[in-house]
């Protein structure tokens, strides 16, 4: 019988940590965009220089690869803290058929 909130499985501490990657998605609002850069409001901050992909749900969903040029905190209309991020667009990707689970 397992108890809720208790660990059930044996854990294994790796003697040598293994490198890997996380892919995290956030819903953001686009404030401005032009050919060269884009301003978005994100619930999470990004580091300057970080490379990200923005998936835009247009008629044909597309991905835009960008680099974070600026990230400043901002208070949204509902009082929540958001982060205004300026992305410099590096490349407009092709059609994005990502399903949200990496099985593109």
């Amino acid at each position, binding site marked *: 019988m397992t108890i809720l909130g208790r660990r059930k499985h044996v854990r*294994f501490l790796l003697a*040598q940590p293994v490198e890997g990657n996380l892919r995290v*998605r956030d819903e953001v609002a686009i404030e401005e965009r032009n050919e060269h850069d884009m301003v978005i409001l994100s619930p999470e901050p990004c580091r300057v220089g970080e490379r990200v992909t923005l998936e835009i749900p247009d008629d044909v969903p597309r991905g835009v690869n960008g680099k974070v040029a600026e990230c400043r905190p901002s208070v949204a209309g509902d009082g929540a803290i958001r982060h205004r991020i300026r992305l410099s667009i590096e490349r407009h990707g092709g059609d994005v058929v990502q399903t949200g689970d990496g099985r593109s």
Partner: protein
Amino acid sequence: MSQGQNGNGRVGRGVVATLVRSIPMRLVEVSRGGCRFECSSRLESGTHGVLAVELAGLMRIDDFRVARCQLRMGAGPLYQVGAELLRTRRLGRRTVRTAVAKIFGDGRGIGYARGIVEGSPAAGKEVSGRSVSRGPPATSDDGF
């Protein structure tokens, strides 16, 4: 590209998009239900995403949800994250859960697992990643 956009480049309210971030991490501890890893970005509890790590020569992918995230003191901007491995994918051979079960045993009565993690990219060759099993603790908050 012109959805909700006026002449001066401002976009109307309500135009949403998905920001996809790729965050490098180091897997420190695993179990069939969760894992602990280190990364340089703070992740809010409840954040979910996809974890990809190479174990035993295969790229293993699983969905995860962050249970806790703590700054590792004295290590610069390094966060320790406890995450739950979500059972949203079929338990195929390329999932982290399968790798844990296969490499380290399923934890049934194994007090000290001698898990050998082969082909880890950390070393670029076969790695003798000896793993010490830890029994479930007496108390815990959530998942991991």
